[in-house]
């Protein structure tokens, strides 16, 4: 591969490296192992959601409901753990709830021809409402049974010094990469985003693929809910507020086109890491949280502008 091709295909990775280099000059503590693991752990929740979002955006869709699904699934999971439900059943049930909610968006989009933005906006509102109703606006503790202790490991535990959420993130990344690049389903996702009409006339069951894509996005949002709930040992009714925007930002920073049909899951991980590094850097440099939001927005804007300039010149 020529150097030029490598650069144009890995702009987000290069951006991440430049960002990290810049921050490490500004603050000597930044590059320490502890801080790196910290960044990875903080990134994991957004990365898991963003990987589901990547599938959705590749089909030229959008999923605004993920933050609400995270909260609802987290509440369900906390209740189940609090009732001493066997761990595996609680986990599967929670992920099924997320997948079911996502699939519902998919059905509304495919069968009732509702724009993904609208369908998932409605989902975001209703599921958040359902979460508030279910929790009565109060946190739900995971309780004091033994199962709560093993559940905690999903968010707060380590294996060989690596935080478990980071391990989960890597496993999900490997699975998503495999599905997108090595399976028929992955091909269909790209084809639908590239041109839905062509996909339909190629004999692809477009409706089914779309429903599965939103179900996957919901399932991964629920998994993110599990990680967050486990770490906090309780489910917050307002958990995940605004997470959909961070996830979309990660996908876009990773070079995936909002028009669909183009993008890579690796880019999304890099995009999530850019956001993670940025948050971390602004914190350790003691930038006030008000300014952090402005800085974060500015960096995302810069990245997207650089990326789109590269495209129009090509």
């Amino acid at each position, binding site marked *: 591969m020529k150097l030029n091709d490598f650069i144009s295909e890995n702009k987000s990775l290069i951006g991440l490296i430049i960002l990290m280099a810049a921050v490490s000059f500004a603050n000597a503590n930044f590059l320490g192992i502890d801080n790196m693991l910290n960044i990875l752990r903080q990134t994991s929740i957004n990365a898991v959601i963003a990987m589901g979002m990547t599938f959705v955006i590749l089909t030229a869709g959008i999923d605004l409901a993920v933050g609400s699904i995270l909260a609802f699934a987290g509440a369900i999971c906390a209740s189940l753990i609090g009732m001493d439900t066997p761990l595996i059943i609680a986990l599967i049930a929670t992920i099924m709830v997320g997948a079911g909610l996502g699939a519902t968006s998919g059905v509304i989009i495919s069968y009732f021809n509702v724009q993904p933005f609208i369908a998932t906006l409605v989902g975001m509102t209703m599921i958040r409402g359902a979460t508030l109703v279910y929790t009565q606006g109060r946190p739900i503790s995971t309780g004091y049974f033994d199962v709560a202790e093993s559940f905690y490991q999903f968010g707060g535990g380590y294996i060989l010094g690596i935080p478990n959420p980071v391990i989960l993130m890597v496993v999900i990344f490997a699975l998503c990469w495999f599905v997108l690049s090595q*399976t028929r389903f992955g091909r269909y996702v*790209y084809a639908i985003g*590239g*041109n839905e009409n*062509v996909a339909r*006339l190629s004999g692809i069951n477009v409706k089914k693929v779309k429903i599965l894509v939103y179900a996957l996005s919901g399932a991964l949002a629920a998994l993110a809910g599990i990680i967050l709930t486990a770490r906090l040992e309780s489910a917050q009714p307002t958990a995940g507020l605004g997470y959909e925007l961070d996830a979309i930002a990660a996908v876009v920073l990773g070079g995936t086109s909002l028009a669909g049909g183009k993008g890579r899951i690796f880019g999304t991980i890099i995009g999530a890491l850019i956001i993670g590094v940025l948050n971390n850097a602004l914190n350790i440099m003691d930038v006030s949280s008000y300014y952090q939001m402005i800085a974060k927005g500015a960096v995302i804007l810069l990245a997207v502008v650089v990326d789109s300039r590269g495209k129009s010149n090509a």
Partner: protein
Amino acid sequence: MTTLLELQGIEKSFSGINVLKSVDLTIRAGRVVALAGENGAGKSTLMKIISGIYQRDAGTVIYKGNEVKFTTARQSMDAGIGIIHQELNLLPELSVAENIYLGREPTKLGKIQWDVIERESKKYLAQLKQDIDPKTPLGKLSIAQQQMVEIAKALSLNAEVIIMDEPTDALTDIETAILFEVVDELRAQGKGLVFISHRLGEIFQMCDDIAILRDGEMIHQGPVSEITEDDLIRHMVGRELSDQYPFVPAAPGDVRIEVEKLTAHGAKEISFTANAGEVVGFAGLVGAGRTELAKAIFGANPIDSGTVKIDGKEIRLKSPQDGVKAQIGYVTEDRKQEGLVQSQELSTNMSLTGLGRFCNVLGFVNKASEAVTISEYIEAFAIKTRDANTIISNLSGGNQQKVSIAKSLVPEPKVLILDEPTRGVDVGAKREIYTLINKLKAEGLCILLISSDMPELLGISDRIHVLSSGKLTGSFSRAEATQENIMRCAVAGQTNG
């Protein structure tokens, strides 16, 4: 005879590939110059340089005595150069009139003068003998009508130089004849015209001069009267073409597809059968219902009543998946919108319909066997591409068409429906496609061929059915079929043109 536009030594390369090599071309007032050449010869690139869409690397363009360098299409348009593009550049959601005046709407105090736009649009459409309400959304029109709107748009520019890039490709004979009358008028008015067409007959019928491009070089320029069709083809392809329509008689096999009283959107009670190892042609004017029939048989359009049987077994057709499952292949007439994902690779496009062939039960794609099949098709169909990962939109029309046909063949269909398979394809590639059709026929494939190119249809079909206003109005064996009796059936029962 004044020279309107003169190109001298035009050079252009894309990513290191020289697509135009020192090309000269002269466009004179009151003459039609034909620009001929195979796909990829550089015709469209040359026209895009004239109209300012591309910038030349070297050479000069002299327009009405002054050297010009247009940097946008807008500038050339304002200077009086109109271009009718091969690919329709219209917006389906807007009305016909809005499309014609897009970007140059006459206004009064900032308000668009709709009455002027509609009146003027109607005038230009009437000049083309098109009775289209200018308020109709463009997307509601047939492709041929849309093409006429594109031509009306060029007329409305009042251009001095009009470039027509394959304007007749989407038109039927009747509309083509109308277009030719208009061209005669424009010629008489002293306009300079450039006519790009793959239909050689039209070049001899219409044009005064000819310019032939091959691989980016201007091979020949001169009056049409001084060149024979054989010479023209030889100049274009650089080799002899013995027979334009190679027909191979074949003994048809058993009945493969039986369509009985099929009624669907645009098709009424159509019955026919076709055998294995047979090419059955479908003739008709644009809008006769041929594409609609094809889409119904493939499952892409809902069937109201009637049955379709493959090998004697009735099949259920609710969606294109059912069509693919019943081993029907459909090559659409609209490559850009329906055939291929333009922004993605050749390889993923080609294997899209038949991906199941390379998958195990869990849906994992065996990329090695996929790559083998793709490279086999690239070789067998002589697809000109750098490699299997080239983006579709970077291929020429003919090569895209070959990918589109290969895509339908990967799932190994029993019935192949080809809808205008040679539209926008050059002479050399056309012949390759005919040879391909013959080969598939010999292998026992049942081929339904829809084409508006009459000589082609007569040349390679074993039998021909004619549709008119959604009904089957005639069926001919190869021996009985002539242009005249097909045309008689094609206009039978036509209520409006």
